[in-house]
């Protein structure tokens, strides 16, 4: 049973008046509307949802890469669509990474309550507070998002790569990721010889 997001939002605003939380409508038939939370307010909001509204079970954590922020607002529609039009044109629209949490309540049998958190951009401001201290089930899932998307979860007890190997440098689930031809390429003397052979004769027209 989908929870009543409006009531939850009202209670959240009543309890945490300073927190930035807004309702995002889901345009699809699933009607799983979501709450967009500012990264700084995430721990407070989650603590309130866990302790007061009895959302004791965090089922799923999804990472999403949005190089095109306009598309992100089409999937999770803001309440007043007209506002966001102008400033988007004035400044270059910037992509971001998003983390989505699906919460359920064991005692009340409701869910999923969908929370969204967005990073500042895709390169430098990619930090989001970890929720592992509230729901332990986020531990490996946050590690996976760190590994595959590059979101840094501050306060995570053990933030390491989980599926890729430790020496890997990129984040393969990002939309602009290009897989190398050879994942295990290492320069060898052989490569040097090949390179010398390639430059030995001047390029012909066939090349």
């Amino acid at each position: 049973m989908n929870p009543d997001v409006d009531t939850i939002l009202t209670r959240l605003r009543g309890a945490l008046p300073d927190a930035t939380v807004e309702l995002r409508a889901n345009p699809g038939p699933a009607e799983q509307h979501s709450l967009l939370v500012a990264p700084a307010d995430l721990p407070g909001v989650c603590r309130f949802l866990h302790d007061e509204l009895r959302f004791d079970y965090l089922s799923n954590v999804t990472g999403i890469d949005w190089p095109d922020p306009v598309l992100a607002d089409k999937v999770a529609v803001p309440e007043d669509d007209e506002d966001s039009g102008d400033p988007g044109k004035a400044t270059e629209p910037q992509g971001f990474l998003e983390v989505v949490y699906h919460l359920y309540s064991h005692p009340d049998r409701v869910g999923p309550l969908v929370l969204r958190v967005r990073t500042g951009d895709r390169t430098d401001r990619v930090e989001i507070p970890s929720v592992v201290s509230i729901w332990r089930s986020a531990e490996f899932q946050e590690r996976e998002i760190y590994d595959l998307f590059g979101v840094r979860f501050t306060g995570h007890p053990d933030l390491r790569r989980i599926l890729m190997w430790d020496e890997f440098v990129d984040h393969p689930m990002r939309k602009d990721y290009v897989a190398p031809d050879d994942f295990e390429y290492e320069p060898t003397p052989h490569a040097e010889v090949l390179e010398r052979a390639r430059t030995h004769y001047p390029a012909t027209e066939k090349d």
Partner: protein
Amino acid sequence: MISDATPLSAPTLEGTDDDQLLRVSLGPQHPSTHGVFRMNVVLDGETVVRLKPVFGYLHRNHEKIAEGGPYLHAMPYTDRLDYICPLTNNWAYALSVEKLAGIEVPERAEYMRVILAELTRLINHTAFMGFILGDMGAWGSALMYAFREREKILDLFEDLTGARMMANFMRFGGCRYDLPEGWIGQVSRIIDDYGPFLDEMEQLLIGNEILLARAQDVGQLPPEQLVNGGVTGPMLRAAGISYDLRKVEPYGIYDRFDFRIPLGEKGDCYDRIMIRFLEMRESLKILRQAIDALPEGDFINPKAKLRNFKPPVGDAYGRIEGPKGELGFHLISDGTTDPYRFRVRAPSFVNLTLLEDMCLGLDLADVVIILGSIDIVLGEVDR
């Protein structure tokens, strides 16, 4: 099994050589790890003081592959997630896409799905019995009995889908084919034989001294901690928490069947094994009801599009009660033929979160039983 068995210098422990810790790398190529899974274990004598699972040996970025093609192209890949039970994976994915696009499923298809899902639950739990006994040292005999019965059901799947394991059978809005003639008769024969087989297996196991000694009072955690750690499925119900998605949010037509949710008391490995026995008996009950009530009609929604299928913009999270726990798919559509984001919430992966907590302070031999009782499949953990 024991590689790089170098003694650790332990600066935190004062004292003599007796306090030295030993680092053991369990896996990845050991049968008790159920696939290519590794655990970095630190031992004080026989006692586990630290345990860190290492994943990724089977990682092929399933999610990225699925995002690179149309929605239907991901269906055969879901077979390879938890390859013991492909049909429940198919159903979870089909259910999520149906939520995303708002597709209705005809009555007959729903019954077919329930029959296939419960048969899948039977083979998963039966195979589990064989594997867990193998973990305890009964290498072969229990597994032989289990696989004999599993093979009978796999034959049925082969009749229906063309493949023993890689079924690729569900479609958005129904199933791929109708049931072949005489198939239901075969199912009902297997159900009739399954009760006596379970009796035999239970007789073999319940009072078995090795099982009692190895599994009782091993690996309990407080129920609140299990909920907080996201544990689902038989693992959670063995601790006495009644949370089965077939009852909590009856997807498909599960609200029409009369069945009960078996619950454990202590949540130790013994309870986890016995819960699965009881669940198989409930599955048999569901199967019998579903076969009796199977209606005629469409096996797939005739309005559902197979080609050029474009769900409306939006996202959806759908989940089902898989044999191993809650299997969920989070899909995001940008209105094109390919999913923008395809996320799998794999029960085996999340259930491993609390592995270290369960093992701390126990012996190394118990780690193998606890890992076995979680019932993981690495195709799903590493994705």
